[in-house]
Structure formats: structure tokens, C-alpha cells
């Protein structure tokens, strides 16, 4: 019997490594009887999508023109 903590860690392990059949069965069994972990599994997939979106959007950080000129001056 695996704990909720272990099961949800294994879900993330599954995104990094291929899980064994035994591990996959343990997860599936646990999710059937544990709504909280089942919820985590769904949220985990949502967070994957959100993180991809957010990081692709890359905040528009810029140097000001003065900072650039100062930098160029410094490197000359």
C-alpha cells in the first residue's frame, strides 16, 4: 500500500521516466479509491499546460536605451 505522497510523486516520475507495469497498476488502483490524488493527477496535467503557456509567453524584459549605450561604452 503506497501513501498519497508516494503516489503523487510517482505520477511525476511517470513524466520523467517510463514506469513499470507494477507502478502503473499501483497508481491506477490508488486513484480509483482516492479522490484527492485523482484530483492531483488532473491538476498536474493542467499545470503542465499552464507552465508551457506562461514560459513561452516570456515576459518582455528589455534594457533601456541608456543602459545599452552605457554597456557599449563599457565594453569598448
Amino acid at each position, binding site marked *: *500500500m503506497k*501513501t*498519497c*505522497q*508516494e503516489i*503523487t*510523486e510517482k*505520477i*511525476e*516520475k511517470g*513524466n*520523467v*521516466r517510463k514506469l513499470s507495469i507494477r507502478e502503473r497498476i499501483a497508481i491506477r488502483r490508488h486513484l480509483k479509491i482516492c479522490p*484527492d*490524488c485523482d*484530483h*492531483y493527477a*488532473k*491538476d*498536474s496535467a*493542467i*499545470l*503542465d*499546460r*499552464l*507552465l*508551457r*503557456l*506562461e*514560459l*513561452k*509567453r*516570456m*515576459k*518582455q*524584459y*528589455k*534594457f533601456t536605451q541608456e*543602459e*545599452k549605450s552605457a*554597456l*557599449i561604452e*563599457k*565594453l*569598448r
Partner: protein
Amino acid sequence: MTEKTINTSDLIENNSDYLLRFAMTKLSDLELAKDLVQDTFLSALSKLDTFEERSSLRTWLTSILNRKIIDHWRKAETRYTDPVSTFFDQEDPNKHWITNTRNNSDLDNIEKRIIEDESYQELSDCIDTLPEKWKGIISSKYLQEKISDEICKEYDVTPSNLWVIIHRTKLLLRECLKTKNLE
């Protein structure tokens, strides 16, 4: 050997904003990011001879910057309180979820709203609360789509560290998003 020369203003005009954005995906501190970009140009110009034109100039600059960011983490690395005990009951043999952190609120509604309203600010605020090394790891994973082995090598973590970090990251982000949506 011919000395390689380069137009400094072009170099900076063409690459500084790109490098700054790259640095900010891995750091939370804008001033620090600007300093590291400046250091990157300094190092690049001082070792221009080692630049092999197999890779693009930008790729080369990015790799110098990336090493500077990793060096910064090595120096700055502090103990981070393991948040796991805030989510799972460590006294319970089954380490079941602690009731008040259970997620009955719907992250899928939050996702829909974020996308529809293009309100990414709360998400990026939540990402900024993560330890810097974790932020770097998720940026390598989700932005650069690096494979896990490469991430482990780059950040000096074992594969099991990696998925434990991703697990903790998601727990923290979920909690943060939920809290912001209750406000």
C-alpha cells in the same frame, strides 16, 4: 592566427534583450539578470578566440550566460524548507492529504479564466515565489523542452530529485493559484 573582431554595438543591440529574457526565465531578480548579461558580454569579448563558428553567436552567448546563472545558484543556494509536510500528514501512516489543502476548487476553471482573460500575471507571480533553482529547472523543462537527463546534468540533481522537485513545484503552484483566486 587572425584576431577575431566584432562590432560591439551590434553585438549588444542584437543580443542583449534576448539574453535578458532568457535570464529572467531562470531568475526573479531583474537587476541581477542585467548584471549577469553584462558579465556575459565581458566574458564573451575576452574569449572571442574560443568562439567556434559551428554554433551561432547567440547560442554561444546563451551558453556563457547559462553557466553564469548556474554559478550564481551554486553560491546562493540556501536550504529551502521542504513544503511537503504542509501538504501531506506526516503523522499518518498513509500520509494522506491534509484536509485544508485538498483541492476542491477547480484548477480547470482557473486555467480557463487565465487563458480567456489573458491574465498571466498571477501565474508568473506564483512562479516567482519558487526557489530560483526550481524556477530554472521548470524553465529548462517547459520552455526549452530539454530532456530530463540533460536537466539533471545541468542542475546537478539525480533523476529522483528531479521528479520530487517537479512534484513540490506543482503543489506550491497549485496552492498559490488557488489562494490568489480566493482573494
